[in-house]
């Protein structure tokens, strides 16, 4: 492990000696435990240690860099934006919002995130974090336009690691649509992100994850959040095209009537590996959670879904649902699922379903008898399979934008 990681702490700007000591201590802890491997139940289907060792000879932390390119912004719809270059907060523009209601700033690296002592990657993050953004919405404020986080990765990131920490807080009765948009130049790097989310009473947060281009990056993102009364959290994972990606979501539904939605539509291609791991904790009565994971797997790709619903004994009237569906298009592709339920309350409605298989032969036959050629028939069915996820997006402009994005991916198959 020490050979793999060649870390120079001098590259990290820190405010105090104490902080530096803490970083070094965390790094030692990380080295001691190493990268997680398949012996760790959470990494059973994605042996990170193996994957990283196979693809990297040496990893260093990112250095100072100059950036003078102009980022091409999305012009399909009006939006506010935040720009992060190689994980470092660069600028933000919230021209559509009232300035005193939305606070976005650079997050100082070591602001304490949740305690995840058993997660080695958390130690790594604490050791090398470059910070990220901090976003806070004042109460009763509903954002007029979405905020897009442009994550730009430059080509000189080869064999580097980026550690990010972000914080999102929605005070009472606020609303926000956040789009995380990744743009990567051609290079192979690692990104380790920890994000903390607090959703206040009656607030609503919608997050979309999307890629502009295919990327050679290896991503891990840990999201831990809490939800207050009547709050809603929706996360749409549409980040196809990454070499490796694991999203680890841990939401705590602390108060009554909170609802949590996790929806994913992924198309995985050659040598791609994505894992979605969730843990939804129902800690109060009358909460709802809904997860729908759809994967299209081609070539030698690997898709993984590890979902867990936890229902505490007092969380009566819980309504929780998990569904994972996979279309396996190639014999080399693989889909693994572990939809787990841990339930201690009796008056609940909890269920899960999981299917995996290839495209329905009957449906293809039907289309072909109508004069549609095989490749087109296949594309049509794949599109229909994935499109189901978009039905849950009420904003028409966004829906069109995401659908367009997915269509491009399907046409590559």
């Amino acid at each position, binding site marked *: 492990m020490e050979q793999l990681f060649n870390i120079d702490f001098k590259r990290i700007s820190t405010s105090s000696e104490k902080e530096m000591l803490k970083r070094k201590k965390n790094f030692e802890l990380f080295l001691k435990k190493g990268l997680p491997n398949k012996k760790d*139940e959470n990494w059973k289907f994605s042996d990170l240690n193996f994957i990283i060792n196979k693809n990297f000879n040496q990893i260093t932390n990112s250095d100072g860099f100059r950036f003078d390119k102009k980022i091409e912004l999305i012009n399909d719809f009006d939006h506010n934006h935040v720009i992060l270059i190689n994980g470092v907060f660069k600028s933000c523009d919230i021209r559509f919002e009232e300035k005193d209601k939305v606070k976005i700033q650079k997050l100082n690296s070591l602001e304490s995130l949740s305690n995840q002592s058993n997660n080695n990657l958390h130690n790594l993050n604490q050791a090398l974090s470059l910070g990220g953004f901090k976003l806070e919405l004042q109460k009763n404020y509903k954002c007029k336009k979405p905020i897009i986080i442009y994550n730009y990765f430059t080509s000189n990131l080869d064999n580097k690691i980026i550690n990010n920490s972000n914080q999102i807080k929605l005070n009472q009765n606020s609303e926000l649509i956040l789009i995380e948009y990744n743009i990567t130049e051609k290079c192979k790097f690692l990104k380790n992100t920890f994000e903390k989310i607090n959703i206040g009473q009656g607030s609503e947060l919608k997050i979309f994850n999307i890629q502009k281009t295919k990327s050679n990056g290896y991503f891990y993102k840990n999201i831990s959040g809490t939800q207050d009364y009547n709050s809603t959290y929706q996360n749409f994972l549409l980040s196809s095209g990454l070499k490796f990606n694991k999203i680890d979501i841990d939401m705590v539904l602390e108060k009554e009537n909170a609802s949590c939605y996790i929806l994913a539509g992924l198309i995985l291609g050659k040598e791609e590996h994505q894992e979605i791991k969730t843990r939804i904790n129902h800690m109060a009565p009358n909460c709802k959670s809904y997860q729908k994971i759809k994967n299209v797997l081609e070539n030698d790709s690997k898709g993984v879904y590890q979902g867990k619903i936890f229902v505490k*004994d*007092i969380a*009566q009237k819980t309504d929780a649902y998990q569904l994972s569906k*996979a279309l*396996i*298009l*190639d*014999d*080399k*592709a*693989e*889909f*693994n*699922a*572990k*939809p*787990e*339920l*841990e*339930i*201690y*309350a*009796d*008056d*609940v*409605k*909890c*269920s*899960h*379903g*999981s*299917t*995996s*298989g*290839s495209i329905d032969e009957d449906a293809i036959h039907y289309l072909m008898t109508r004069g549609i050629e095989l490749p087109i028939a296949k594309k049509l069915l794949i599109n229909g399979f994935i499109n189901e996820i978009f039905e849950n997006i009420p904003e028409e402009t966004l829906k069109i934008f995401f659908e367009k994005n997915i269509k491009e991916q399907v046409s590559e198959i």
Partner: protein
Amino acid sequence: MKSEELKNQEYKYGFTTQIENFKAPKGLSEETIRFISKIKKEPKWMLDWRLKAFKRLKVLKEPNWQKPKYPKIDYQNLYYYSAPKSMKEKPKSLDDVDPKLIETYNKLGIPLNEQKRLSGVAVDAVFDSVSVATTFKGELDKKGIIFCPISEAIQKHPHLVKKYLGSVIPISDHYFATLNSAVFTDGSFVYIPPNTRCPMELSTYFRINASETGQFERTLIIADKGSYVSYLEGCTAPMRDENQLHAANVELVALDDAEIKYSTVQNWYPGDKDGVGGIYNFVTKRGACRGKNSKISWTQVETGSAITWKYPSCILQGDNSVGEFYSIAITNNYQKADTGTKMIHLGKNTKSKIISKGISAGQADNTYRGLVDINAKAKNSRNYTQCDSLLMGNKCGAHTVPYIKNKNSSSTIEHEATTSKINEDQLFYCNQRGLNQEEAVSLIVNGFCKEVLQQLPMEFAVEAQKLVSISLEGSVG
């Protein structure tokens, strides 16, 4: 009678037979293994096999990933062999068997006397570490079917035992399986010759009687080409406030076109209502569908034991082979269960089906844990899994942990699971028709389990239905 007034019905089979025992020295050691092997008059290869397992055991660690945790077992404080003194020399016929033993089995409802038996069921009765009697041997012999204690098979049919023992559960499999390989005492051996349909149900009845004793039985069933056998297993133990370990290994081998149906009604002592005592049922059951078109079907009704921890599995090696798993696991009071199955698809066109029903009441915890693994070469395979859990009260837990792996594009896996409580409307409807709460619950639960109960052979189905109702008594209201 109001439901609150209902007390837990005492465990019916909790009596102890006062009998003089002949035991191996306490503790797990090479001497104990040599002792067991010697007393069973085993050939050298068998002893070597045991010792090899023991050597392996020393490096293995007890697994700890399971949901039900238990206090550390002191393996040195256990007897690994205990048999009634009268069984030291194997009785030649039923008339030579100690009447006390026969009486015990009569009390359990398993008369060993052939005339009194339900015709159509041959029984091998295992008492602690020895087989007491095997019925209907003559009739089975005529067809060439071998049904005998495994210790007898080791002496009389060594070629079969050598060939198949440990071929499904290797000696270095996991801690409890390896422990069993080292110290197993008795169990049943079944061999069905080619193209033979076993004319009757074969059955083994396991009884733990002695205290501070672990029971380590080993069962091996081989169904040769084109044969069929249905095998039943039942078990009980006295009420004691100590926890007793039961670590059995069951191996099934089905060759071309053969079918094995294995049914279990597990009713070990579950401990009292405060969770004191009871059996730790840590069993390894595995079947290999080795031949083409073979089929293995597991049916289990798990109502007893303080902790049930087992995963009857199928390895579907042969093309077109079929694996089935039907399970009811009922936990009440402080009982814990972590059970399920593994379906490993290796051959082409293999099919598997899993139906699991978990019911938790009181402070119990019930986990379904299963694996469906379709290998890249297992083209056109299919799996269907359904696991439903029923919760009674908010002090118990129901958990589902399925692992699903699909590695090829022509195979399909479907998995469904639900967790709910008894429907209020159904209860109300039953109450309205004059059924009291207990009866109504029993009726609804039996309906919930019906899909599995249907799979049991006639002789067991009635008993199992009663058991389901009794296990839940006192859990309503």
